[in-house]
């Protein structure tokens, strides 16, 4: 767990079967299934409100589907599955940052919470990678929308999780940051990682195998 | 039967207010509950039928 090199050594796969999601009295999607293996990527596509975020929340275990199962490494994922959580990095619409803490403090705490032993220096490096090194000692409250999002995304440089689930990571980012992020994702794919991503923008990530999951009804 | 007359019955030995108010409010609560439920189910059914017609 100590070394934060990029190489994901874990070879596992995520299997989803017959996922159905109902919110209120609307069926968002029915019978969604896929297999995700090392080095491959899923784009979840669909218009606003088609259920992309809901699917991502189901995949990360935050939302219990109406029916269907998820398997990680061949084992059924149960709610609060610590084994799965330690292999997972989820960044949703919400940044998960505390307004009153500085960017560096936020990042340090969230890495520690995920079980990584990080130092102030590694944290600063991660913030620098995505171009908000200068803001590391500012409370998150005063940062701009894009800077906040970047601080949240800086976790991608601190994690060793093979599976990344990212909900619209590119929203509110400027062009430079989008490029930086794409590079990081490419690197993750090369290292044998897996990713599930939603976005409304056109970005190209190089993966060994790319699937499109369309949710429009 | 130990009531001398209907008047005595209604008078309840001077405790008429307390006794009849108790029984009254109990009856009222129960009747109100049942009526409210009938109204609620009629409403629910009407709504589902409206939905079905769409």
């Amino acid at each position: 767990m100590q070394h934060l090199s990029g190489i994901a050594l874990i070879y596992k796969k995520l299997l989803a079967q017959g996922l159905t999601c109902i919110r209120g009295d609307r069926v968002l999607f029915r019978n969604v299934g896929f297999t995700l293996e090392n080095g491959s990527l899923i784009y979840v596509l669909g218009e606003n409100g088609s259920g992309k975020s809901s699917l991502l929340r189901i995949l990360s275990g935050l939302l219990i589907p109406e029916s269907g199962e998820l398997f990680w490494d061949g084992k059924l994922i149960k709610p609060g599955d610590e084994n799965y959580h330690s292999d997972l990095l989820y960044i949703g619409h919400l940044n998960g940052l505390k307004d009153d803490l500085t960017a560096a403090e936020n990042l340090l705490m969230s890495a520690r919470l995920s079980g990584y032993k990080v130092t102030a220096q590694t944290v600063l490096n991660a913030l620098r990678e995505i171009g908000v090194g200068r803001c590391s000692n500012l409370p998150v409250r005063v940062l701009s929308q894009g800077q906040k999002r970047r601080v949240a995304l800086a976790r991608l440089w601190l994690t060793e999780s093979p599976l990344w689930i990212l909900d619209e990571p590119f929203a509110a980012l400027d062009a430079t940051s989008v490029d930086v992020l794409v590079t990081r994702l490419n690197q993750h794919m090369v290292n044998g990682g897996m990713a599930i991503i939603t976005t409304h923008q056109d970005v190209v990530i190089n993966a060994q195998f790319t699937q499109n999951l369309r949710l429009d009804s | 039967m130990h009531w001398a007359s209907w008047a005595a019955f209604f008078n309840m030995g001077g405790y008429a207010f307390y006794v009849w108010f108790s029984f009254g409010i109990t009856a009222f609560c129960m009747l109100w509950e049942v009526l409210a439920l009938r109204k609620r189910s009629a409403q629910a059914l009407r709504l589902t039928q409206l939905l079905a017609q769409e």
Partner: protein
Amino acid sequence: MHINWFKYSSPQTFYPLAGKMIPWFAWLAVVFAIAGLYIGFAIAPTDFQQGEAYRIIFLHVPAAWMSMVIYIVMAGWAALGLVLNARLSAMMAQALAPTGAIFTFIALVTGSLWGKPMWGTWWVWDARLTSELILLFLYLGFIALQSSIDDARRADRAGALLALVGVVNVPIIYFSVKWWNTLHQGSTISMGAAPKMVTTMLTGMLLMALAFWMYTIAVALMRVRCIILERERSAEWVKQLSGADL
């Protein structure tokens, strides 16, 4: 005999079944109530200490009993719903809560109306009275929580959790309140003042309690049917119901 419980635990099959059961329980409630009231008013003698005011007992005690029993039954359904993820159980819990609250309210009001002539005051901070009041708060908390969550499934699970937490606490609350009142100076008149119960009185009370039971079941079934209708609005079988199924 083998009964397929899973079949009856689906709202679709339960809905008509409940509809058939309601009249039976309703009539039983009426019959028991008439019998209980007859014994209570016509046969039971006047109390030598309290005069006729004691006849409130035929409502007060059964209502107080029901208020406590319903909470436990409700928590039971809630637990079942949480463990088995069964929708119908959660709905049953939700359907029982208002009736339980109403019986608690009746017990409080009739007790109050009894207290005024007997103790000379509407309210004393006595252990039993206080714990009944707290029970009312527990019911209201459950109802308020459920009604302020829109998502039905979430409301079920949150409510179930609260009911379980409450049921663990009810005995603790009951004994703590009891102890509180015995340690401080007690109220001058205690409820033990009622004389030893005569058999006719006991019979009357039991009959009224039975009537309340039947009433509770009938009303809970009615409410469960409403809840099923409201929740499964978009299901095919609900759309095919007509006014005759009311």
